[in-house]
């Protein structure tokens, strides 16, 4: 192994690798920053370019796009509350508030450092533990995924404090929307009302753009304020960079989120979006001052951002060790590997170990490069938000439309508008929108995993779970224990006094 590592390092001693990674990072960041433009699309479009390069250049290039994209999505999430990618949805909780307080740049930088650290740490962990992770992945089947999702939902719910019933309603609406479309086991189409467009389910991107972008635009027009930054904020102080002491406070959060993200990365079908929410919830729960969450708390940026990036490391493992892509992005990477003559799968470490390790190390180094690049590229974004709304709002709306149109057809526009207007009304009535997205995303996996578990168990669920699938049972029991603990804890309080959470 050491010899292979030595060879890998040799492969990395060329400056053009870093040039291509940087190009990828920058492109990825810009694409990620456009709501509706997915990193997947950018990777797919640039795939031919990657083909023409040799593997040591082409694949890190694509990886650069990928990583740049995840961070890029946080930029509009923080500045205007519109997530550029699904992974940044949780960042919209604290981001816009911070921007309004003139702390937009601080938030952007915190997101950057959290993302980079989370990403690099998870990549290094993956490198070192790749064999172990591969084994764990084989152990995580449908019952485990189901249990982990339920457990995560309980976790997220336990800290979403203020939403209460309305949050639950929002979640149920999301779940209901998530069930529109073809059901997985017997293939029947549900709730499509005869619309062909809905057979595959409500498409995510128009929905997200609608739910986030439209209310933001409407609210921006609503207020008479001239810009997105609060009028009482000292203009000299807005645009200030993040100070060390502010960053230091979030280091535990970043470490925690890294573990969370790495864990989630090993569970197929859960993904960055949920990891970000779990990271946020965990940060809030662990915080000594949870009441500042929701009003502009930098820790609430660090939490999700580190988690969503930390998902990346383990996601590569099934791709590399088994040749199985876990999601669309890894599917493209698989295509890239294959096109470059590499065959991910059991033999790849024997046959091309040095190259694979080199690529993984390059992924880690990409993060280092990214800090430098993004730090510079951030400033124009942070400054741009200070422009008058009259310039920004039409541009945002135009780009939001592009985002929706880029995924296909005019019916997506309809979905976006309907979702957007509904979301605006709900938002005004104080319904929390984040649970809706979580519910929407998790509806299908929950049902699918439960159905699959029932099929494997041949109907005998109790025996299946608790005898044959210990990992799944562990998470289910942990979830139940958590709920019990929460209820007990809440009833312990002296009646009449508010709960300090």
């Amino acid at each position, binding site marked *: 192994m050491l010899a292979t590592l030595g060879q890998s390092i040799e492969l990395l001693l060329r400056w053009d690798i870093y040039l291509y990674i940087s190009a990828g990072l920058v492109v990825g960041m810009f694409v990620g920053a456009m709501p509706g433009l997915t990193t997947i699309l950018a990777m797919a479009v640039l795939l031919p370019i990657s083909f023409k390069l040799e593997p040591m250049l082409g694949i890190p290039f694509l990886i650069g796009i990928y990583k740049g994209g995840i961070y890029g999505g946080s930029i509009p999430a923080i500045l205007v509350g519109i997530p550029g990618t699904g992974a940044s949805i949780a960042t919209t909780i604290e981001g816009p508030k911070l921007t309004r307080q003139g702390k937009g740049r601080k938030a952007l930088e915190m997101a950057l450092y959290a993302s980079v650290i989370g990403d690099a740490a998870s990549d290094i962990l993956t490198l070192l533990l790749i064999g172990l992770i591969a084994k764990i992945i084989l152990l995580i089947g449908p019952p485990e995924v189901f249990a982990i999702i339920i457990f995560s939902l309980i976790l997220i719910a336990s800290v979403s404090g203020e939403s209460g019933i309305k949050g639950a309603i929002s979640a149920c609406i999301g779940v209901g929307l998530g069930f529109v479309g073809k059901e997985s086991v*017997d293939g029947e189409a549900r709730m499509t009302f005869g619309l*062909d467009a809905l057979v595959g389910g409500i498409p995510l991107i128009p929905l997200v753009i609608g739910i986030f972008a439209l209310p933001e635009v409407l609210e921006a027009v609503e207020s008479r304020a001239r810009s997105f930054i609060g009028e009482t904020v000292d203009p000299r102080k807005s645009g200030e960079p993040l100070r060390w002491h502010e960053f230091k406070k979030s280091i535990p959060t970043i470490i925690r989120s890294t573990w969370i993200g790495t864990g989630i990365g090993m569970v197929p079908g859960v993904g960055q979006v949920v990891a970000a929410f779990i990271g946020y919830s965990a940060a809030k729960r662990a915080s000594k001052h949870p009441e500042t969450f929701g009003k502009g708390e930098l820790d609430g940026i660090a939490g999700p951002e580190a988690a969503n990036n930390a998902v990346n490391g383990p996601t590569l493992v099934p791709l590399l060790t088994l040749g199985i892509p876990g999601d669309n992005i890894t599917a493209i990477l698989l295509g890239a590997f294959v096109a470059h003559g590499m065959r991910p799968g059991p033999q790849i470490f024997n046959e091309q170990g040095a190259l694979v390790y080199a690529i993984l190390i390059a992924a880690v180094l990409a993060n280092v490069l990214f800090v430098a690049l993004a730090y510079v590229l951030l400033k124009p974004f942070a400054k741009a938000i200070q422009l008058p709304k009259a310039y920004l709002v039409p541009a945002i709306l135009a780009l939001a439309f592009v985002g929706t149109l880029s995924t296909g057809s005019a019916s997506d526009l309809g979905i976006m508008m309907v979702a957007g207007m509904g979301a605006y009304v709900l938002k005004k009535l104080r319904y929390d929108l984040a649970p809706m997205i979580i519910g929407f995303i998790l509806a299908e996996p929950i049902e699918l995993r439960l159905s699959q578990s029932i099929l*494997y168990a041949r109907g005998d669920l109790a025996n299946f779970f608790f005898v044959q699938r210990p990992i799944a049972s562990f998470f289910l029991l942990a979830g139940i224990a958590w709920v019990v603990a929460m209820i007990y804890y809440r009833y312990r309080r002296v009646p009449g006094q508010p709960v300090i959470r």
Partner: protein
Amino acid sequence: MRTLRLLSLAALSAALVAPLSARAEYPDRPITVVIPLGAGGSHDLHARGITPILSEILGQPVVVSLVPGGAGMKGTTQVAKANADGYTIIFTHNAFDQITPQTRKVEFDPLTAFKSVARINASEPLLAARSGVPYKSVPELIDYAKKNPGKVNIGHTGVWGVGFIPTMQFIKAAGIKVNLIPHTGGGPAMRAVLAGEDDLTFGFVTQYRPHYKAGKLVMLALAGDKPLKDDPDFNGVKTMTQVGYPNVDFTMDRIFMAPAGVPADRLAKLRKAFDDMNKSPKFHAFLKSIGEKTDYMSGADYDVYRTKRMKQFADLIKEVGSK
């Protein structure tokens, strides 16, 4: 500022004059290829390599438009209803073209709404089992399944998908009762077999190869009747016809189609462009580089083949589908 406005105005007027001068022949503007699948899939991969070659041959950019959703029907319907002027075509596979539209209400007639432009390749699925199963051949499997109805777990990648069809053909032909497990794609299905959760699945050569070589998979049979003679690893796999089930013959065809109303001369031009591409070494080199083989069939031939297949699948759907 004023100068800028004048300049913009001038530029626009100049541009206005340009189209009036040339009444070019087909194609005189970019052609859109709709792919009814999401980014990153194998179709996308194919398209990214094919479209530059096509663009060169046709002299106009060929642009990819991904329209996933509706189990492939969103993109398919879009093209079926598009202007039949030869500037919109679809790159899809035969499950979306010949099967899915027959399983439910769609806004076009599956048989008559499209004309084939070309078939790029056809892949035969293989029936693979995980390495610990108590049977080594198809007859043994069927025997075991009959003695243990509902016990054998067969994973598929989605109802009416490319792994599902051969599965159903097989189950019906063999008359066995199994436990059908749905998955959301080839990756998860593969993982399930490797993890020992699923016993069998139908999939394709490129996906199986590394695992077969690592000893994790056993190949039981190949759909259809053409053995993989040139394949270094799988040339010994029996075909379904050889083991007595010639009806298990589904192949996944990657096809380019155009809306049926396209004028004959434009369709001919498109078909010729593809025929030319098939003669190009760049095309074959590309397919080889992504691990796929070529199995070209011209548009006219595929139209005939397609009609036959439509009927065959219609029967299968009637047999298997929900009443």
